Structures are given as structure tokens and as C-alpha cells.
């Protein structure tokens, strides 16, 4: 699957990870262009439905990233998000949906290097897993 270029969507919070990704840029660190960022005020804002929409629309992988515990700009948004993810992951796994497709992480505004590393390793990982056909094949099924 070496010639496979995965589509990866990153849902990140504005205050930590988005700023961290900015730092990656200002530090001119390089990473895989397969990942594009969508900006949210806080990980607490990220609706699990959006992750499903990303998969349904052809995402092979997803990164969800925000402030480290206790660093949340809104003090507890990331804690609420974390609790939601715990349950969401359990459900996806139970439904046979490969949770390795979603990488959760904390990347602070100072961790430009971590962001680059996270994106590259995630891209490699998803490349190994191949296209998320298990989910994408659903599109169109059940329509006469």
C-alpha cells in the first residue's frame, strides 16, 4: 500500500493544538500533506457525529487533538471530550469499526515537534492499514 495516500482529517482545538501546529510551521518542520486541520474552539466542542461524517465522506483516518489535562483554555472542555471518547471508542470497537483509525492526542501550543511527529506517525499507521474500505463500502449499500 506504498502508493496509497490516505485522507486524514484533524479535529483540533484552537488554543493548544492549532497553535502547536502553527509552531510546527514557524519552526519549518516538515510533515505529511495528507492531513488537513479543522479548527474548533475546544475539544469539548467536537461532536462524535462529525467523526462519523468524516469517515462516511472518505476519511481513512482521523486525528482528534487538544490541550493537555489541566491546560484547557476553558478549564474542563478536554476532560468532557475525553470522557465522550472513552465511550465512543468502546462503541465503535463493539460495532467492529477499527478504532485505530482515530488517533486521540494532547498537543500543546509549545509542542510543534510533537505535532509533526504525531501527523507523520499517524499517516504511516493509516497507510499501513490501507483505505478504510470497511466503512466506505457502506456508501450506496441498501439503495435499490
Amino acid at each position: 500500500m506504498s502508493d496509497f495516500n490516505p485522507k486524514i482529517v484533524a479535529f483540533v482545538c484552537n488554543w493548544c493544538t492549532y497553535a502547536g501546529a502553527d509552531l510546527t510551521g514557524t519552526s519549518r518542520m516538515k510533515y505529511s500533506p495528507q492531513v488537513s486541520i479543522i479548527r474548533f474552539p475546544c475539544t469539548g466542542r467536537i461532536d462524535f457525529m462529525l467523526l462519523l461524517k468524516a469517515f462516511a465522506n472518505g476519511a481513512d483516518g482521523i486525528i482528534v487533538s487538544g490541550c493537555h489535562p489541566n491546560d484547557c483554555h476553558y478549564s474542563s472542555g478536554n476532560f468532557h471530550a475525553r470522557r465522550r471518547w472513552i465511550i465512543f471508542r468502546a462503541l465503535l470497537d463493539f460495532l467492529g469499526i477499527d478504532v485505530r483509525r482515530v488517533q486521540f492526542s494532547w498537543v500543546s501550543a509549545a509542542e510543534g515537534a510533537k505535532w509533526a511527529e504525531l501527523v507523520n506517525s499517524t499517516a504511516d499507521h493509516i497507510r499501513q492499514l490501507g483505505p478504510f474500505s470497511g466503512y466506505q463500502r457502506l456508501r450506496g449499500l441498501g439503495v435499490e
Partner: protein
Amino acid sequence: MARIGVFVCLCGENISATVDVQKVAAAAAKIPGVAHSVEYKYMCSDPGQQMIQNAIKEKNLTGVVVAACSPRMHEPTFRRACSEAGLNPFLCEMANIREHCSWVHEKSDATTNKAIDIVRTLVAKVKKNKALQPIKVPVTKTALVIGGGIAGIQASLDIANCGHKVILVEKEPSIGGHMSQLSETFPTLDCSQCILTPRMVEVAQHANITLYSYSELESLDGFIGNFKARIRKKARSLDEKLCTGCGLCALKCPLKKIPSEFDAGLGTRPAIYVPFPQAVPNKPVIDRSHCTYYLKGKCRLCEKVCPTQAIRFDQEDEIVEAEVGAVVLASGFDIKHGDFFPEYGYGKYKDVIDGLQFERLASASGPTLGEMRRPSDGKVPETVVFVACAGSRDPAKGIEYCSKICCMYTAKHAMLYKHKVHQGKPYVFYMDIRAGGKMYEEFVRRAMEEDGVQYIRGRVSRIYERGGKLIVKGADTLLGARPMEIEADMVVLATAGVANAGAEELAQKVHVSYDSYYFYSEAHPKLRPVETNTAGIFLAGACQAPKDIPEAVAQASGAASKVAAMFSQAELVREPLIAVVDRQAPPLYSTCVGCFLCQTSCPYQAIEKEEIHGRDGQLIKTVAKVNPGLCQGCGTCVALCRSKSIDIQGFSHEQVYDEVLALLNRGESDV
């Protein structure tokens, strides 16, 4: 139909070096709804901004996407430019193709395609942007300061001196707090009351300050700029207007032997009393828990002797209501007392005292008039052992933090003792000496070198009495943990600084968060140290954590400047990027079903209950309502709401949903 303008920036070569900007602009032009698409060398430059403004007018654009650097860099720039051209600033978005694209990828088609993806995503978003108006919240320009210690006094004076009204609430009969109990202050050894009492008087006389002493906050409702406070004025049993503070009542009161709070229990006071001579206000209060009349129904001697008939035995507590715009919490701290240290015999041996008691012993206005006489027999102690970290930094005692002030006041105590008892032998048991601060380290050195205070590094394990002496058992860890035993005449424990007994209750009344030690939590440990997470409520002094005087004063002034800044405009103007609860036409009124899960998730108590009543006045339903004064726009409630009845402006369901779809669906038109 949307008419979006896309403005692709080359950023010199920062973007164009790796991204084919012509291709990006061309692709953007093909995105449905894009009416105008150009590239330019420096979009943020004046000609660049001019270019955008002209396009807005000529092509009458309904939205703008600037594909350039990070919005964290230039979003304000371009939004301002748009609004100057008559386009609502919130109809402008930035596509970050520099930090998130050109700078992090090599020159390639993939990089250009990603830039196009980003632009397409932001075009999809901006199509769903709504023109938003800044939120304006009216401000009542009166501040409520809770706590009349040095922090509360400083904050009150600073705010009042900015020309704003202040209501200062102090639960004790007099303001002054712990500082008024201190003898001298480190590192200058100037008399505490000499520097404090002028400030107290200033408070009393200040035209902008209303002082409610012997009063407590009953409740606080409302939100930033618009709080409603209810204050309980406890009955002094006295008509303050008539009372001249002559003190005759206290003189004649038959009870004299009530332990004085001010003297930390070392001195005594009558049942009707003024805590200390320089008290502000200088009006007595009857301690009903001791007064013979209240206990036995007879006496009323004070009433007879009062030249102005000011005594009011039947006086009741009074509730005063006040509208305030901001609140400063300066409720201070306390120190550990009582049987917290059984191993040190504290509370058991009269001559094992705490730091505050020593302050009173050393104070010229104290029970011994400043003479160094030990509590038990009034003898001058020959040998005094000072124990630092009594309780602090001791997980076993459940207090893991450093109380911060002890190192310094212990050095001060040892010095004061030496200055008063020249032949005396002061010893200090310590763990580490933390003397960070201007002239602090020098101060401790002086204690050691000039005043010959014996510093022993080690914990005290036990203190017990033997032949009229207090035996202090410890170890000198610098001498290979050599066991030490000192025969002392008096022991002073630098007991841990802790939150006030009422700290939790007060926090819950005003809805601020606190840590596991009941010290109040600041909004951000570094960047917002004087704010709380509840907008409009600020912190000053030791209610946040143990502090020395200069720190408490500095923070108080910081809080005061926050309040003054808030009061400097007629209304608060806030970005409208906040949550809103769905409203509908009758019969539905709102899709909210009022489960109020959102309420439990909100870090800012911004979600209120709103009752919707029919014409007949009868309740139809209770739904959530976001208080725009409190909401900070995190959106946690939005993701939690099952019926999607809460949305957040600027990151709405439609906006983020369309972003996801646009990012992943490359139309045939582009690339």
C-alpha cells in the same frame, strides 16, 4: 446565493515557494458560490487590504476567505479591513495555507492540492457564517470587596481611587485582618500597625467606600457587570450613629476574662469590646455568647453607663441589598490551631505557641505590652525553639504544600526574640529555607550571623515537659542526622497556613472553583492569576494561596486594576462567539427539552433556566438559556446536546459540518 471572495496570499515567497498559488486561485474561482478569486504578494499590506475592500464593494461580496497565514496571526487584521469596507467582520475567515501547509510541506502537487482543500473548506464554512454583533453587557460600576484584611483594604482603596464605588464587607468587628495582629514585618522590621492603620482609616474616610464591618455575604446572584449581593449586617447591639467610641462600656463591663481573639487567646477582653485600640470602625460590639444579659437576662450595665444611650439589646441582624458589577474575594487565610500536633504538645503545654501568638507576645500593643514573657508563668524564656514547617510540606498531615511565609516570619520571630532578650538562645528547626524575594535571603542571614540564631536542619519528632522545661527532640540532618535534644522554655510552631473555615461556603455562594485545600482557583495559573473562572469575580490575597504582605498587596492592586478596566467603559463588549439555545415559533417555542445536561457541563455557570409561559401566564416549558455575559464559547454544551438545541456562533453545526464535507469531497471543478 453566496458571493464569496477568495484572496490568496503569496506572503512574499513564504507560500508561493511551495504552493502553486495561481492554481489555488484558479481552483477557488471554480468553487460554487465563489464570485471573485485573486492572488497577491502581501495580502496583509495596505494595498492588499485595499484590494479586499475594493472587491467587497465592487463585487458586493457576502463573504471573504483570505488564504494566507494563521488566523491567530492576522484574523483581526482582515476582519477589521472587512468591516471598514462595510462587510460584517464575522463574515471573514482565514484559510491557513502557510503555517499549516506551505511551511510544513515540500513543493509538490500534493501541497498545492492541500492548499486548495483548505481553501475549499473555509469557503464552505464562510458560506454558513452569520453576521454577528458584538455582545454588550451593561456594567454597574460598584465593586464588592469581601474581606477587610490588607488585600481587601488595598483593593478597595485602589478601586475607590479610580473613582468607583466600593462596598467592603468584613466579618469581624474591625477591618485589618491578620496584618493588624502582627508586631513587626519582614524584611524591614517596621511596625505592622504603623503602616496598616493609616490605610484602615483611609478606608473608613473614603467617600467612595461603604464599609460593612461585622457583616457577611448572604448571597450573590447575577453575572459579570450585574451582580446582586445580599449582605447580612450582624447585630452589634449598638446604634453606631449614637456611639462615640468613648469605650466607657467596655471599661465598666463586669466580665473581663474572655479570651481575646485579637490577642490569639493570650489576652482577655470584656463582653462588650473593641477588638483593639486602633479598630476601624472604633465601635464596640456585644459578644452575645458571653454577655450576662443575653445569658441570664440581667446586668445591662453598659446601657446604664453609655453617655449617648447607644446600646440596643434588641437589635437584630439586618440584610442590605446591593447591585455590584464586580467582586473581589479577599477573604484571607488562617493557621492550623489546636490538637493538630499532639506530638508537639500544642494546646497541652501553655508555652508551646503558634506564630500568631508569638506576634502578640512581641507586639507593643499585645498582652505583655511587647515584653517577651511566656504564657505559663510570665517568666522571660531563656531558650526558645522555633519549629518551621509545623504541618506544612507534610503529606502525613495532609498538607503537602509549602505555606511560604513561615521561613521568613520564623527568622523574624527569632530576631525579635533576640532583640528583646539579649542573652536568650533562639534555635530554629527547619527543612529548607525558602527566602526568595527582595532582601529576604539577606534578612535570614542577618538572623543567623548578626543575631546568632541557631539554625538546625531537621524535623522535630517530639516535644514534652520535664522538670518545668520543654524537651524538644529532633535531629540535625546536616550532622548525619545526629539526635538533638534541646531544653526550651518556650516553643513557637510555624503552623501551616490554611484556608479560612468559611472558605468553601463562600466559594459556593459566589460560584467560584477551589482546590482540594479550599484555596480559590485562579482562571489560569500563569496568565490569569487574579481572575476566577467566573467572569467578574477576582481574587486578592491569601484566599488563593498563602502569601506574604507585599504579594497580597500586589495581587490586590492587580485585581483592582482588572475591576477598574472593567469599569472604564459604559458596557462590556465581548466577542459574540458564544452558545445560543434554539428558539422557535409557538407551539414548540424551543427544541430544548430542558434536561439541563448542558448545565452540568458548563465550566462557567453560563446556562440558566428560562420558563416559557403562555398568554394565560401558565408554565408551558422550562428550557435552557445561555447567559451571554458568562459564556466563554467553549462549545462543550453544544456537543453534548442530544437534540442539537444549542449551537455556538462562529463554530456552528452547519459551519463545521460543511467544513468536513468540503474538505473530503473534491468537486470535479477543482484540482
